[in-house]
């Protein structure tokens, strides 16, 4: 056990000795948090919808949006709405081009919003359209607008529900609506970042192999299991520290809600172990640290993209979702989604934790075996 701790402490020391690593651990996550926080309109929490156009229609839209907990703001010019969305102060804009017949433009900044929040706003707009159409039908049948409105208000909820279905509000959308824009991406970003940073351990391993320090370490009375445990423990501490740091900073500064802290940290810990194992495997198989960095960054980004850290997993087509579940990111993402959005605890994410633990065990075992083999290989 002493040897394992000694190795872990060594890994930490080596990591901290490099100023660049400190930048990656302490500074870059802050930059990331701030940038993402600003994107969310500075407030985190609720999404902002900017509206402009015909006052009556805007009021109707505001009422609809309020029912799904979105904040709204009114603006005189369509251009203002577009600008607010483009600078990120508003998450979505709605411009009422014409009230009769109802014609709306939806303004979104990016694909991700268009898919999530945009969908939600669109369905709110659809509800307004349907209500308007119903009113038209009733007034057309001879009722006064007041009578028509009263009749519609008096109608049972289920009656207008058919119209709501058109917009296709689904539980995922509801979840996303309840989150700030940063929160939607935060889980994925956290995973992407922790994994990428942990993979830098591969280069450290290669340097230690080249200098012969690993040979000497392995010539000491330790088993390769102890060696792997020590190396992984060091990296694991870094990964968890990094993740926790991002979580604390983002929740203090931007009110990002992460959910059950114990559960999130457990996911992060197992995910960090997988990353440490992958780094070890790369570090003992690849002999050039340039190549290892390339594989680390390239592979880290690809895995993150496949695992739902860039575009949320929920928007993946069926086939790609299967691929996603071959990545540790996919499982960790699902676990974080459960914890962060649906208030899940450790027990709710046991399957995901199990898969992550199995992945960690597999890569670490492979790493240990490859480490032993690497001692007999010329570099």
């Amino acid at each position, binding site marked *: 056990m002493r040897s394992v701790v000694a190795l872990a402490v060594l890994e930490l020391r080596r990591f901290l000795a*490099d100023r660049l690593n400190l930048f990656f651990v302490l500074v870059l996550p802050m930059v990331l948090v701030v940038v993402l926080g600003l994107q969310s309109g500075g407030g985190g929490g609720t999404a902002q919808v900017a509206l402009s156009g015909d006052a009556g229609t805007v009021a109707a839209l505001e009422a609809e949006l309020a029912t799904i907990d979105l904040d709204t703001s009114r603006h005189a010019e369509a251009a203002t709405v577009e600008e607010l969305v483009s600078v990120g102060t508003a998450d979505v804009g709605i411009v009422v081009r014409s009230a009769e017949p109802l014609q709306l433009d939806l303004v979104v900044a990016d694909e991700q919003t268009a898919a999530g929040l945009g969908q939600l706003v669109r369905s709110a707009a659809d509800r307004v359209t349907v209500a308007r159409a119903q009113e038209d039908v009733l007034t057309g049948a001879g009722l006064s607008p007041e009578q028509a409105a009263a009749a519609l208000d008096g109608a049972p909820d289920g009656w207008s529900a058919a119209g709501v279905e058109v917009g296709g509000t689904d539980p995922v959308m509801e979840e996303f609506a309840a989150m700030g824009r940063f929160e939607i991406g935060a889980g994925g970003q956290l995973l992407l970042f922790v994994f990428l940073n942990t993979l830098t351990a591969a280069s450290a391993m290669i340097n230690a192999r080249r200098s012969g320090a690993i040979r000497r370490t392995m010539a*000491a009375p330790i088993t390769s299991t102890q060696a792997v445990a020590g190396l992984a423990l060091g990296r694991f501490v870094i990964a968890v520290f990094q993740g926790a740091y991002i979580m604390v900073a983002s929740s203090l500064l931007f009110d990002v809600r992460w959910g059950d802290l114990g559960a999130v940290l457990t996911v992060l810990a197992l995910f960090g172990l997988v990353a440490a194992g992958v780094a070890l495997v790369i570090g003992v198989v690849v002999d050039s640290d340039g190549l290892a960095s390339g594989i680390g960054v390239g592979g880290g980004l690809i895995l993150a993209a496949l695992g739902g850290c860039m575009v949320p997993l929920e928007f993946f087509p069926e086939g790609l979702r299967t691929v996603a579940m071959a990545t540790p990111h996919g499982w960790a993402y699902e676990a974080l989604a459960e914890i962060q959005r649906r208030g899940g605890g450790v027990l709710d994410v046991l399957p995901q934790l199990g898969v992550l633990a199995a992945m960690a065990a597999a890569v670490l075992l492979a790493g240990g075996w490859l480490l032993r083999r690497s001692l007999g290989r010329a570099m």
Partner: protein
Amino acid sequence: MTTSTPAPASTPVLSSTPVLEAVDLVRRFGPVTAVDHVSLRIEPGQTFGLLGPNGAGKTTTISMICGLLSPDGGSVHVAGVPMAQEPLAAKRRLGLVPQDLAVYPEISARQNLTFFGRLQGLHGAELRTRVGEVLELVGLSDRAKEPSKKFSGGMKRRLNIGIGLLHHPDLLVLDEPTVGVDPQSRNAILESVEALAGQGMAVLYTTHYMEEAQRLCDRVAIVDDGRVQAEGTQDELIELTGGVDTIVLSGGGDVAAAEVSLRGIPVVQKVARDGNHLRLVVQNAPTAVAGVVRTVSDAGMNLSDVVIQRPDLESVFLHLTGKALRD
């Protein structure tokens, strides 16, 4: 992990276990047989040299001795402990100083020593004391806190050796510890090895420098092509050459006539001419030299220089393999 204790201390000194017994070690890398049935036996207190050119198989042999590489054949016992069955106990008795500068450059000399000391099972006050002693021994006390990447080559080499000594191993294994260092540091390293040997530590020293083996080692194994070509004390090895010396004569005048005359005297076994130099192989140079000088002078050669070369490990190597050590 349990530690097995070595042979009891009551064992009589005369029949003491060798600190190293390697028998018939074989290691192949694909088609290359890097080590081909190598056997070594080192007694307590001995300084044992493994002398051979680059690629002879020295590092591979050492890797098997230190448990870094599993042999394709043969066995290793360190102070009686079998490496294959009890690797941790066997490794504990060894101190390895690898050929590369096997230190972690990002951390300080003290941190390196502390780390490797921990791996060797040292801790607490004992660890601190040993680290202090070794820093003193290798002359790095005043630079102990600097990252070792800032050290000169010689300082790194000294730290490299210091780490191997931390836990008072029964056998210190040094793999070409002087490669790439300046002559001054080299001398310092050789002196420290001599000092350690003087204190009774057994040393396995590999080198391709004949002079180092000659200066340090009680026994030498000459290796080439993965095989031990000869093994023994330096005198025993030199015996193998048949005890012949070389005399080199330089000068002007009738060198050709001198060569012819030399072929006529019985003590001279071989004569080779290289311009104005004559190289003779003789049975015993100190007694033969007077007759040789008289003969060449009579033949009309004006001698400017006479050099007598006693056989050394280089000649042994040449004799055994037909190659120079450094080529």
